[in-house]
């Protein structure tokens, strides 16, 4: 299934030059660099598949505005060097007009440095939004995903204050720059709001046992803990806290794994704060998504693909606004001034302007497991935050 599609993507490494994938007039070539395999695939493979599924359905329906999408997919394994290689291939060989990234933050730098030089826009559609997409935004870089370390932190602290304004808050981060930056920002916000901090604990990437980190947070009197890092790390932090009998509430980022894992953990003290809708609520939007997945016969969990699906919606809307000129430049012009209807999968639209490639207003929802109903529940409905 995947293989067939990728056949176009792979050229023979051992034989003589393969020709570039030439775009027909009515075809837009988009490169997708994703962590399809490797350690991070647990998070990113599903959204990437979701995006591909969306685009396939668009093409089958005859394209958008008379244009079809040729999606060139390369696996970057969440690895920086592979991503650099993919970027070069997209730009020099496949002549893509847009690059989509669904991979770890480690792959951002190589992709950004390659693409910006060639004037090709990048859409981050499965991972954390890089700071470069936020105001003042760098040209060419756009982000459609539901999470950003700083804004998620703002929303987490805000919700925490609604619940318990006097709580002493501890912060759990992973030793990668983007996670540290988010949690240190969260601590600043907490201190600025006259709440007490139990400190930021940063676990190195190769941590074997999170217990000592959790102990420190507990001993510093943390009544609530905020965590923002890859799911596997935030959840291990949470486990370590609970194992020491800690009974506070934990607020974690809403990542692709969140819904499925929370239904297994069944802990009402674990809150996810994020901007994607969950599948359990069975709204029109989520029903459509689930139906599409079922129909495709692909072995995917609908819960895990929401960000990729939204990436597909973004592509559809951008191409819908695109005129006859399908160059990278024209695509970038459309993207820098557009409002995308998120069709019920988010709290509101994604609006990009010249200066803001993240969105003008971001909507957050809080989810948790409810013991009373024995199901997931919305702890707080959509709340809008202006992005400055």
């Amino acid at each position: 299934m995947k293989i067939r599609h990728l056949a176009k993507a792979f050229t023979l490494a051992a034989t003589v030059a393969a020709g570039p994938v030439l775009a027909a007039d009515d075809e837009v070539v988009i490169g997708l660099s994703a962590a399809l395999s490797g350690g991070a695939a647990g998070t990113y493979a599903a959204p990437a598949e979701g995006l591909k599924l969306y685009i396939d359905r668009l093409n089958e329906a005859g394209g958008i505005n008379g244009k079809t999408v040729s999606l060139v997919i390369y696996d970057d394994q969440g690895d920086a060097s592979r991503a650099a290689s993919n970027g070069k291939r997209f730009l020099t060989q496949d002549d893509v007009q847009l690059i989509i990234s669904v991979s770890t933050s480690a792959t951002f730098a190589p992709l950004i440095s390659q693409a910006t030089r060639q004037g090709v826009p990048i859409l981050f559609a499965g991972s954390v939004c890089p700071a470069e997409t936020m105001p003042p935004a760098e040209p060419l870089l756009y982000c459609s995903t539901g999470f950003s370390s700083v804004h998620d932190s703002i929303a987490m602290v805000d919700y925490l204050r609604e619940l318990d304004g006097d709580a002493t808050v501890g912060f759990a981060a992973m030793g990668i720059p983007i996670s540290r930056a988010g949690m240190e920002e969260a601590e600043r916000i907490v201190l600025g709001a006259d709440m007490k901090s139990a400190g930021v604990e940063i676990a190195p990437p190769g941590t074997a046992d999170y217990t000592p980190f959790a102990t420190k947070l507990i001993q510093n009197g943390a009544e609530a803990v905020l965590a923002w890092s890859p799911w596997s790390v935030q959840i291990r932090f949470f486990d370590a806290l609970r194992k020491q009998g800690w009974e506070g509430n934990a607020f974690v980022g809403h990542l692709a794994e969140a819904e499925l894992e929370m239904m297994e953990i069944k802990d009402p003290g674990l809150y996810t704060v994020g901007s994607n809708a969950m599948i359990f609520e069975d709204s029109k939007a989520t029903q459509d998504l689930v139906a599409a997945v079922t129909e495709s016969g692909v072995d995917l969990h609908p819960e895990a693909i929401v960000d990729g699906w939204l990436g597909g919606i973004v592509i559809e809307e951008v191409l819908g606004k695109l005129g006859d000129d399908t160059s990278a430049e024209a695509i970038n012009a459309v993207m820098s001034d557009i409002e995308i209807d998120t069709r019920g999968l988010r709290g509101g639209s994604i609006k990009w302007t010249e200066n803001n490639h993240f969105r003008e207003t971001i909507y957050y929802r809080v989810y948790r497991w409810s013991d009373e109903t024995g199901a997931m529940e919305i702890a707080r409905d959509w709340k809008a935050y202006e992005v400055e």
Partner: protein
Amino acid sequence: MSNTETGIGKIAPVRAVAKGDGGNRTAWMGLIVLLALVPLVASPFHLDIASQIFIAAIGALALMVLTGIAGQISLGHGGLMAAGAFTTGILYKETGAGIWITLPASVVAGAVIGLIFGLPSLRLRGVYLAMSTLALHFVVIYLGGEYEFASGASTGIFLDPPVIFGYELYDGQAWYYALFLLVAGTYWGCSNLLNSKTGRAWEALHANETAAEALGVQVARYKLLAFVITSGIASFSGALFAYYQSFVSVEAFTLFMSIQYIAMIIIGGMGSLTGALLGAIFVTLVPYCIEWLMETVPYLGLDISTASSASHAAFGLLMILFLVFEPSGLIGIWKRTVARFSSQSKKEGVQ
């Protein structure tokens, strides 16, 4: 006992191979001309792979000299490359320094780190030494991560293409030629070094340290010299990596990278500079070949989601096969093949 402890001398007769490298001049010239013509026909993707091989080759040559010739094991090779890449990245970002400053600075930084982490080698050997070089990796990555975080470079440090004599080195073909020349230069430098007094001292202390000392070789001096020189080269290749890929981040330099370099010198053939080149080619190509195989042979039942783990597994398996069945590496296979053909042609000549 001394042989089994220090180890690797057995794998390949060092002197013989090192000398044999200089051998067939016409064949070498032919190869160089052929390689110089590659960019005229290759696609950008293939040129990119070639450039990756060249950068790996420089690093592999350094490790070959250190481990294959001087007999000092290092698991910190990835850390050294990171050190070079970060020196270049930080200098560029903080001062805007050009390539004529950043590259020498990276070499010096690598040499200094090599000196520091070479010091334990005066006391330690074998696996103990390998473990102490592991610390190098963790220290460099820690410092690099702290810099990235402190400077707000949450996605890494970006580099613009280097400018050489007013010409911006960006195009894939230009990089190909530049790196090609640098590999040739490194190879030439290393082979000259091996034929000098220093090279002979290294071989002596590799074969038997106590005997070398008895023969008047200043063991401590030459050991440190091996660490300093090869670390400088490794760091240099890290800086080239940074420029070529236009970015630096800690995530690009994993422990697995150090293991890949060790695999290059094993698979290539211990003790041979040409082996280092062959190893660099082989190890760089493995993942691409695996993916290609998965493409062309769909019946394997593997799909793209397994590409990374399949190439990991294949890589481990290949390393094992070479270690168990072909300890003299690709260069050993090559020599046997050549020997067979030349003995056959001799026979025919006689008849």
